[in-house]
């Protein structure tokens, strides 16, 4: 199972790539696999302010819909517009072109409290 080393992870299967005081968020390969073929990702407006662990959107697959939760508090700087026409990017490249939102993070130090790759691996291995 693909769990890139440099990212941080939540118990809801989102990943965060920290870039200074910005962060990029998506869902993990494990989550994408559990969902199945993604058909629609509902993303928020740029400028939206999010609290830590707040729901920022919904991801729909053929069989089900799931809420998406932000790992950290921040302001939405950008959303991945490619997902409107190509939701399958979430399945094909969950850590690459399947990214969902870019945030300006209020307090980057909070990322320390998120799981690292090894901790996330243990989480899904006991799932």
């Amino acid at each position: 199972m693909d769990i890139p080393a440099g990212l941080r992870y939540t118990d809801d299967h989102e990943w965060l790539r920290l870039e200074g005081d910005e962060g990029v968020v998506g869902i993990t390969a494990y989550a994408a696999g559990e969902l199945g073929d993604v058909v629609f990702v509902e993303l928020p407006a740029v400028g939206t302010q999010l609290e830590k662990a707040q729901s920022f959107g919904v991801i729909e697959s053929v069989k089900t819909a799931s809420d998406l939760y932000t790992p950290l508090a921040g302001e939405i700087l950008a959303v991945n517009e490619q997902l409107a026409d190509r939701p399958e990017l979430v399945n094909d490249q969950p850590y690459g072109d399947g990214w969902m939102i870019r945030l300006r993070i209020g307090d980057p130090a909070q990322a320390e409290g998120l799981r690292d790759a090894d901790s996330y691996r243990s989480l899904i291995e006991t799932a």
Partner: protein
Amino acid sequence: MQPTALVELHRAAGARLVDFAGWEMPLQYGGILDEHRAVRARAGLFDLSHMGEIWVTGPDAAAGLAAALVSDPLRLATGRAHYSMICAADGGIIDDLIVYRLAEERFLVVPNAANREAVADVLRERLAGLDALLDDASLRTSLVAVQGPRAADLLAPLTDVDLGGLRYYAIAEGHAADQPALVARTGYTGEDGFEIFVEWAAALPVWQALTDAGVAHGLVPCGLGARDTLRLEAGMPLYGNELDRGTNPFEAGLGRVVKLDKPTDFVGRAALAEVAAAGPRRQLVGLTLTGRAVARHGHPVHRPQADKEIGIVTSGAPSPTLGVPIAMAYLEPADAEVGTMVEVSIRATRAEAEVVALPFYKRDRG
């Protein structure tokens, strides 16, 4: 969970296995969308061994089934099949099923996996005192289906049944992959295809032979996920969604299956005759959604900008063929006219939808 004879093959093929009606069944292999598209374009292979196979035989088999079911098996020719339902006295549907006539006194009834035991019990009750035997052979029988435009070309070299002579809703006895088999031209996808009944363990050589022959045709194994999206596009009801104990056939648009005028009295006749005369109180319709959010089972339906619920979604999914979300819903007759605009409550928002005729998809029979 009860595995089918093919569970290890499914695992080896990378299937995600789930509990369906107590059976360990493949939900998907490579992905529901790919599997769905493969069936529409080429062919898909399905393990349907969870379905029931109940034999009803004897001099009173036809008459007994005519009294037990809403259809008229007395008029079913040997080698033919028809879709039917078994109803309670109040007209509520206990199960939908297919009846195949193998001989004058030999019928195969195929109920849904979840209702198999209930159907066997009710049939036994209704056949009591008649010169007919019931044998639930489900746990000794496997069912493999191949569905899609390439299904006939793929299966023909593997069977001694003359597929060219096998009409839609016909069944023949013969062999498939050298195994004794019943080959039926029935299915739940809206495509041409075949359902192959064999002894439990014979599923393995049949599946393997079809898989090997299928390489040249682009055959893919398909799970229950694609089975559901395919039948939804084809406008076919699913027991538990569109049909249940509180629903009658007329509400589901299946009045043509109920033979009120057959000479045999049958369980539910009086109640169903009343519904037919008065008209059903709600109607099953198709919906196509304008946006991207997917309407699903249980989502309420409203008139645009109105609070009152006028119906409920029974099934919904993205349609791979149409490229939009589709759904089936029960609406009051006043709102059920094709072209009516409605709104579906999906999570916290309202999604616009249009009432359309079923089915959403019809195969090209040219």
